[in-house]
């Protein structure tokens, strides 16, 4: 299965990654190779196997509704490239 150039651009857009023309060509090849590798799974006969979303034998893992202390704010913001007034500072987000 070969990805089209448009599909690569769409994936990059969803991931918010800017790609150069060379990179688009490069990733088109690389991503297609990964997909082809995964495609081997399609050849396995799964007709007798029920579909599942998990391979773990676990069900109903829940916790009681009890609050615990949160992190000190210095720790929360310690690795933030930029912060201001206790908030994470990020690039401008355009809305309406």
């Amino acid at each position: 299965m070969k990805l089209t150039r448009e599909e690569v651009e769409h994936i990059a857009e969803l991931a918010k990654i800017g790609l150069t023309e060379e990179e688009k060509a490069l990733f088109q090849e690389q991503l297609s190779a990964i997909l082809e590798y995964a495609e081997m799974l399609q050849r396995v006969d799964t007709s007798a196997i029920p579909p599942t979303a998990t391979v773990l034998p676990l069900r109903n893992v829940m916790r009681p509704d009890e609050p615990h202390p949160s992190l000190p704010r210095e720790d929360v913001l310690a690795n933030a490239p930029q912060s201001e007034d206790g908030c994470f500072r990020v690039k401008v987000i355009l809305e309406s």
Partner: protein
Amino acid sequence: MDSRKPTGDYEVIIGMEVHAQLDTKSKMFCGCRADVFGAEPNTLVCPVCLGMPGVLPVINRRAVECTIMTGLALNCSIAEFSRFARKNYNYPDLVKGYQISQYELPLCHNGWLEIEADDTTKRVRIERVHLEEDTGKLFHMGTYSLVDYNRSGVPLMEIVSEPDMRSAAEAYAYLTKLRQILRYLGVSSGDMEKGAMRCEVNVSLRPAGTETLGTKVEIKNLNSFRSVKMALEYEIQRQAEILDKGGTVEQVTMGWDEERQRTVVQRSKEFAHDYRYFPEPDLPPLEISREWVAEIRAQLPELPDAKCDRFVAQYGLSVYDATVLSAEREVADYFENCVALYPQAKTVANWISGEIFRRMNEAGLSITEIKVTPQGLAGLLNLVEKGAINLNTARRVFIEMLESGRSAEAIVAEQGLAQMSDIETLERIVDEVLAANPDQVQQYLAGKETVARWLVGQVMKATQGKANPQLVNKSLSEKLQALQRLREDKKSATHL
């Protein structure tokens, strides 16, 4: 808006998506406190709700219960097998690059909610009720933005209706009823102004009598009940005008501009609507036993409609009174606690919908916050019943009770407000009033009977309002009648 032409030629199709924050103590997948409103930014976060690498979410059992309880109250089927899913998109309010939500196996589905609007009762079908996590909050600062992640991970219930509403009034009724039920259940405050309940509507028009669906327009940013109604009325009219001119409605996302009172096209968020949902690998699925559902069902409180019916049957209230008193669970409880101590339901209903509601409105308080308890009100009404105070005094005492929170008995005793029912004292005061107002007495005797009321007023004034009005009336009319007879006797004597 009123001057515009009606939209009778079109059928309006409205569907609604409501997000309600659950009133749990902790967040959806971590132990951070969930009551984040008003907290300092980023003080209620931990590695899980900050989406740090390597952390594992764990489902809050109470949040699942709240959702199932809501599903039951909305007549839904409860899934036997349910799981969470990742909804992938990139936006700075979303720490992980995905939101944990539910997709193909929601906790609840196929329900309905009965609403009353435009003088009819109808059922709005509920497509699904599912559980997810809230996102962080953005502050736009012009050249940059700030993010507070306190809200990240707060449990959020999404309730999706089928497109069954046919007018703005029906949509308003649906939203009001939904909030009423969430509050009755105690699962959410439903406070739209605080963002605890958020609403998105989609609306389309089609020529009346046709089955084809028109182009859907989605309206977001509705943060009050009023704005939901106004936005829908505006948008219905806007679409009708486009269709009238033979135009086509564009499929867009709108926002409601409160200041300009109109819907405006919102620039789409900078991500494509391609969420690539897949089952959340970090959370084992839920198998919801029927025993658990039965347990939750047993915890369901009496819901507003049932309570209203019972108030009519049990207390003989009018449907109107019963509706008013059952609108909020706290008011209904107040009413019943009071009636248990003073079993005259109609009187209690009148005091609550009159004096108590007035106070709540004036002071912006809920019924649980005002200083007169149901026991206090019953105490006051019992004093009136026993004849210890009259109604006028009762109103004065009530105001005093609202201020101080003290009992009616204590206020009456301290201020000497007990009703004056001593016949001898009252008769003496009536005599004094008659003697002091000979002109008015003459007017009465000349046939102007309304003067009697004025004279009663004078007696009440002389007793600072404490006189027992029935006794005053009785004494006064006896004395006036005696004067009348005296006058007639005199007349006939002169004729002899």
